[in-house]
């Protein structure tokens, strides 16, 4: 059926969209030129990988309302398939360029999504969550049974520098792997954004919001979930393949429950309700795994607490906080709020510093008792066995909490005022 237009349609360029995508591309290109150290380049690569993985996860959580506890199955199995393909390529038994290895991982992830998704997507909601968790445990338990494929405890390792150099690209230096990842990230992010605009993406949102009505208008919700699950599995597999190329080793923990939990946690922290939320989550994930875990032993505790408060007070994640303030800025009221923000930030930091000092002292007592009771926290020397340190930390925390409450009341007051103003402004503009 050919559609011919009978009239001229005015379609303005979506300037903001072009601007944002160009900025994103520019950022991907420029970042390794700014952060040139080996650690930061690997971290940037990991961020790119995490972005694809979190976005593919959000295809399920944010767009389909499917809370999965087993997404690492698809990234992880993608990693394994990609690693075996890489090893086969270096043996010379198949001829695949390293550039396309992540795609092989993607196909692998998709294959397992087709296989497992048939069972998991039969249900939605809470049952879906439990079945995905069971699937995750199943695959993880299998990884210890089939050592030919999973490589047992040691995992499967390979070498990404194979074949002839093409235009000087050998994937030996980490920067080249970064640019490979960046290219994949850009294309995958664009494709996943495009997916949200397709009829399937739209009906997936409808399945999330009101499955009964979707059934009424003649769609099979199970089928919609299954198709989306397969596509998410494909992108997850690509992320896994990129990770395999980056690390050159795949161990069984990539399919484990911890990894699945991390995807869920950070996608939610970034913000599942907006498309760009998981991108923020991915950056946070790599920062937390690489830097925060070095900085403090108690990082999982902090992570859990942050997550708990986020679910309770800002279920839209960081992305929703940004969007709320963008709305404020659009109406020119952000300037009146900044004092309240500074107040909130300073008092919260104070309370956190006190609480963190106490947590660090407990951890120090528990883990490093042999090193003596002294420890350094944020440049301050503390003694975990002296009353002074405990009293000081508790005092800082309680004062911070008290002041935070005062600042919060002022903030809530200001916030309500601006919201009333914005509502009025919208009404006024409508009336014009």
């Amino acid at each position, binding site marked *: 059926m050919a559609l011919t237009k009978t009239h001229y349609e005015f379609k303005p360029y979506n300037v903001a969209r072009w601007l944002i995508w160009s900025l994103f591309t520019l950022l991907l290109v420029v970042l390794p030129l700014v952060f040139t150290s080996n650690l930061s380049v690997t971290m940037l690569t990991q961020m790119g990988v995490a972005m694809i993985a979190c976005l593919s996860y959000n295809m399920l959580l944010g767009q389909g*309302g499917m*809370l999965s506890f087993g997404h690492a199955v698809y990234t992880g199995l993608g990693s394994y398939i990609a690693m075996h393909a890489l090893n086969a390529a270096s043996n010379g038994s198949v001829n695949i360029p390293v550039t396309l290895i992540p795609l092989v991982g993607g196909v692998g992830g998709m294959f397992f999504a087709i296989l497992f998704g048939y*069972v998991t997507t*039969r*249900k*939605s*909601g*809470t*049952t879906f*969550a*439990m*079945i995905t*968790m*069971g*699937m995750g*445990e*199943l695959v993880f*338990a*299998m990884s210890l*049974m*089939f*050592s*030919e494929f999973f490589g047992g405890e040691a995992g499967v390792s390979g070498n990404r520098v194979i074949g002839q150099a093409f235009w000087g690209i050998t994937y030996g230096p980490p920067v080249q792997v970064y640019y490979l990842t960046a290219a994949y990230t850009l294309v995958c992010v664009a494709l996943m954004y495009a997916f949200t605009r397709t009829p399937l993406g739209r009906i997936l949102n409808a399945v999330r919001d009101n499955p009964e009505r979707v059934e009424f208008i003649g769609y099979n919700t199970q089928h919609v979930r299954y198709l989306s699950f397969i596509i998410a599995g494909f992108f997850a597999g690509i992320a896994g393949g990129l990770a395999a190329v980056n690390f050159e080793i795949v161990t069984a923990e990539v399919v484990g*429950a911890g990894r699945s*939990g991390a995807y*869920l*946690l950070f996608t*939610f922290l970034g913000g599942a309700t907006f498309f760009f939320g998981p991108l923020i989550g991915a950056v946070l994930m790599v920062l937390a795994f690489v830097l925060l875990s070095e900085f403090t032993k*108690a990082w*999982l*505790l902090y*992570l*859990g*607490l942050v*997550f*708990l408060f986020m*679910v*309770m007070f800002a*279920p839209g994640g960081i992305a929703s906080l940004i969007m709320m303030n963008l709305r404020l800025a659009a109406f020119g009221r952000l300037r009146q709020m900044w004092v309240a923000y500074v107040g909130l930030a300073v008092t919260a930091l104070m309370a956190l510093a006190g609480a963190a000092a106490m*947590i660090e002292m*407990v*951890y120090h007592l*528990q*883990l490093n008792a042999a090193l003596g009771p002294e420890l350094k926290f944020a440049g301050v020397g503390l003694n975990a066995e002296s009353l002074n340190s405990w009293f000081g930390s508790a005092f800082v925390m309680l004062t911070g909490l008290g002041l935070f409450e005062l600042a919060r009341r002022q903030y809530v007051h200001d916030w309500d005022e601006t919201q009333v103003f914005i509502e009025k402004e919208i009404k006024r503009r409508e009336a014009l």
Partner: protein
Amino acid sequence: MEFFFISMLNGLSYGLLLFMLSSGLTLIFSMMGVLNFAHASFYMIGAYIGYTLNSVLGFWVALLVAPFLVGILGATFERLCLRRVHKFGHVPELLVTFGLSYIVLEVVQLVWGRTAVEFAPPPALQGPAFTLVQNSLNGLSLVWGAAAPELCSAADAAVRVVCSPFPATRGFMMLVALMMMVGLWLLLKRTRVGLVIQAALTHPEAVEALGHNVPRVFMMVFGVGTGLAGLAGVIGGSTFVTEPAMAATVGSVIFVVVVVGGMGSLAGAFLASVLIGVVQTFAVAFDSSLVSLMQGWGWQLSSALQNNSVLKLTLSQVAPILPYLFLVLILIFRPKGLLGTRET
């Protein structure tokens, strides 16, 4: 024969422990629609609090007080966190409990350390409850407590004697689980409180209109459910190991139990717990693989087939994945679970 009896009893006791956990989970789920992801974490807290109380006040006090404390913790969590996200829907509720499971794991490691603690059962429960003596002359006999050494060794080398003890802790575990089951049934079916709970399950608005405080009922149910997990924790912790990984080991299995039994069905949870407990215990005990089975049938296998990694797997190696395989099969052939009534 004695192997079968002892394995059956071991399987039943493990299954009943699973039921102690999954009953609380099912109760909370069917009441509030909340899947408590941190349920196994409350089990772990119960074990650790039980361990601390055990060393201070003795086991029997710990058995009574620890579940109570865990229940209070659960009710507090419901009041402070869960109730706040109730308005956002079921997924944020699940996520809050997911976050809690991270925090509990870290706090437990912070307070009690990262390695297993020594949580020994009281002297009365140490040693076997009874011993089955299989004598090739006299047949099978049962001895209460530990069997005397002269019973287990025959003077004549031609007489084969096997003594199989059954641990008293496991017997105690079965006893407590059965008592808990009866108590729960009486509470739900025979008391006024149970009546309100059942009514609030299906018609919360009507119950509220009659003057009952439904949020408080929810808080109590959450407290009771987590308290049951705490009770299971004291018993499970003293029978098995009390370590930070204990929540993860049992956590995913109880979710399987709840889905296999049918979401929100207590009877289904019971059936599925016992089934999975027995199947897993028997599977661990068998060392046969497909290769040995086929050779048992008299098939000639090539050496390539004999070394095939799939065929070579023994049943005891496959045991950890059996519950999940069971889950998949149930979902394909009976999506609402064994005794479930809800379709989605």
